[in-house]
């Protein structure tokens, strides 16, 4: 490979102060087979156009900042290697199903609210007291929820889900998987409280099991599976409330 090879990036540009419609801007970037799409965007920002706006931090696939649409697919740009696209141009857009703040940055406030909605924390009846040592949890009990605790909140699944795009009330894959993660945690006693939220209207039932959330998930969380399990749990809870309206607690 010659040293002076380049690759073209077509970046989605939108500025809220001046633009009413987005546009695409092309940049030629030196091609390095070790580079990821994020490196190329950083190079553009550093040396060509400082106004290009994007989020990033860890560059190792765990902080969840740098999710974007790369040639139409939701990807962590720190894990999308140029060599997988070269020599063709790469089109980079902000994650779909979110409002765009500027360029490649989306508004994630709605996502943050949905995370909070599922009560993603341990709920217990007893008083918090550390003097008795750790709660016991066997490796088998840990395995029940571990997979669903691996979500990095990168929001790729929201961009892959057609329901998120069409149904505002739908809590979405990551938030539901997180709720399920706590429901399956042997230390938690808040299942009933959490299902209360998840059972309402389209919050969870909006999911039609397209399954793309699990396909695009970079951490193999399988939100689609989690949601189907949560639906089964929810149906049980619903039935319990139907037959025992007063003693519905789990």
């Amino acid at each position, binding site marked *: 490979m010659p040293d002076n090879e380049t690759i073209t990036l077509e970046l989605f540009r939108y500025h809220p102060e001046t633009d009413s419609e987005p546009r695409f801007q092309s940049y030629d970037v030196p091609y390095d087979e070790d580079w990821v799409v994020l490196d190329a965007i950083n190079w553009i920002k550093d040396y060509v156009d400082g106004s290009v706006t994007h989020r990033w931090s860890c560059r190792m696939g765990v*902080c969840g900042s740098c999710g974007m649409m790369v040639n139409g697919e939701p990807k962590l740009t720190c894990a999308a290697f140029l060599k997988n696209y070269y020599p063709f141009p790469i089109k980079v857009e902000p994650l779909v199903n979110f409002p765009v*703040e500027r360029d490649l940055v989306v508004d994630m406030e709605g996502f943050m609210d949905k995370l909070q909605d599922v009560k993603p*924390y*341990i709920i217990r009846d007893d008083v918090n007291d550390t003097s008795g040592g750790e709660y*016991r949890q*066997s*490796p088998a009990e840990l395995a029940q929820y571990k997979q669903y605790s691996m979500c990095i909140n990168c929001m790729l699944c929201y961009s892959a889900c057609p329901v998120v795009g069409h149904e505002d009330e739908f809590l979405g894959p990551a938030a539901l998987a*997180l709720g399920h993660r706590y429901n399956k945690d042997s230390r938690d006693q808040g299942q009933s409280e959490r299902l209360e939220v998840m059972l309402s209207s389209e919050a969870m039932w909006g999911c039609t099991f397209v399954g793309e959330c699990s396909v695009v998930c970079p951490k193999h969380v399988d939100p689609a599976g989690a949601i189907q399990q949560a639906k089964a749990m929810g149906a049980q809870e619903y039935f319990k409330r139907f037959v025992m309206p007063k003693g519905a607690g789990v």
Partner: protein
Amino acid sequence: MSHVTTHEHDVIIIGGGGAGLRAAIAIAEENPDFSVACVSKVYPMRSHTVTAEGGAAAVIKDHDSLEDHIYDTISGADWLADQDAVEYFVNRAPREMIQLEHWGCPWSRKPDGTVAVRPFGGMKIERTWFAADKTGFHMLHSLFQTTLKYGNIVRYDEHFATKLLLDDEGRCRGCAAIELRTGTVRAVLGKSVIICTGGAGKAFPFTTNGAIKTGDGMAMAYQAGVALKDMEFIQYHPTGLPGTGILITEASRGEGGILVNKDGHRYLQDYDLGQPLDVNDPRHPQKRAMELGPRDKLSQCFIKEKNAGRTIRTRDGHVVHLDLRHLGEKKIDKRIPFVRELARSYAGIDPVHQPIPVRPVVHYVMGGIDVDSNSATNIPGLYAAGECACVSINGANRLGSNSLTELLVFGGQAGTHAARFAMDHPDYDVSALLAQAGDERDRIRRTYFSSPHKSGSERIAVIRKELHESMEDGAGIYRDADSLESTCTKIAELRERYANVALDDHTNSFNTELTAALELSSLLDVAQSMAHSAMQRTESRGSHQRLDHPERNDDDFLAHSLAYHQEDGSAPRIEYRPVTITKWPPGARTYGADSGLKRE
């Protein structure tokens, strides 16, 4: 950036990583009537705590003891740690870790359901709690999710704090912060302030640190008159991936991984780190020996091995091999799956079948904002915790897996003390603080949106790159007077050139070029304190190795350096404060055969 808006709370926390969130919960839980603001330049779950892999240390098992944890920490620190602080830290650690367990952190478990522990470098007994090899990720998300339980924690996500606001009595009462989305400057006011903004690894070119670790909080405190303590002590982690600097956790050695040179020889045995045992020997890996020596020594061994011509040359510089193959696929997948994922993605090798190329990489700043053992700075009402702070428990070299625990112990402690201060000193004058925030807004606009910045000729990236090269060349694993002198000179030059930085972007909304410029300014401050502190310390201790002063000198330097910012931006004034020694007088720092035997 038209007007300044005012937002009043009781306690203001700057930074939403492990320490900041722990502090927020401490305050919210102990003071349900308090309003706690958490101001962070990123959404909390993006904070760099998320990348920590191996684990967090706390004594929990019967065969371990607090005494051992204290001694390992102090000797690991080459006796530069304050022993009263270390004692507090070690005593408090188990309770904090259990608390986090109660908050849902998915710690790896033993078959009986108790938490599992693994050995880390420099430890006599294994005491590192872990959640596979994504411990920091799980800790951060558990903390963040737990904060969602408290209605009195108000988040200012994607707000870039640029200045501390002090009242007429000199008490810290908040900060000015740019709301990234709109560019509005906000005066976030409270009765006390805690800085939890993390380290400054981005002063160096090759680092495990994320883009956000630019020492903003350190620089803010420094500018406000707090000393930066022990800034010459920079930790190089011995095992980063070449090219990217991605961390390969010490847990890979704690689980039994070995380091070999180009001849396949376990070279650490040649540098007083003990004799290797066969990888199939049940006593392997030996604690406080060989691959489980401390990070400073292992990184220094790499340089010696490289100078002897026994490392492996690659496109991305010299490397040695971290060999995990004998662990087998099952153990790798269960205990260190992220190592496999990272090595496959970013080094193109599968550690089940091939050794991982690694080299030392800047990982952690032992130094930081000078705080006492109550996490308080010399400015009343200003506290700091986490990597940005220097208590100091880490001294000249931090032990692996002490930093995550430090976030909890001192984050919680800073929260408690800051809340107490807020209760005792409730009244302040809003208008004076608002005026300062207005001045700060004007300064930012004047500095970056009008000439010479608007028409200047310097690019942020160019200055940053030259800073990186100079820090690596002059203030790396081994330094001497000449190398440090040239780095100090270079930093002075770069500070001057910074005045001519040109921005392409002069708009308000989400101006990340402006934040990059502000971050570079922080880095220049912090790097200056590092280079000058290193220059003045004419001894070798822990991670600070002077080729021209190769011995430790307890007579003159059993003391913390304190760098004070000068108004004109010239070289900081450096002072010294003796280390607090209680029960553990300085001794020889030995690993390998006589490891840990030198204790009283």
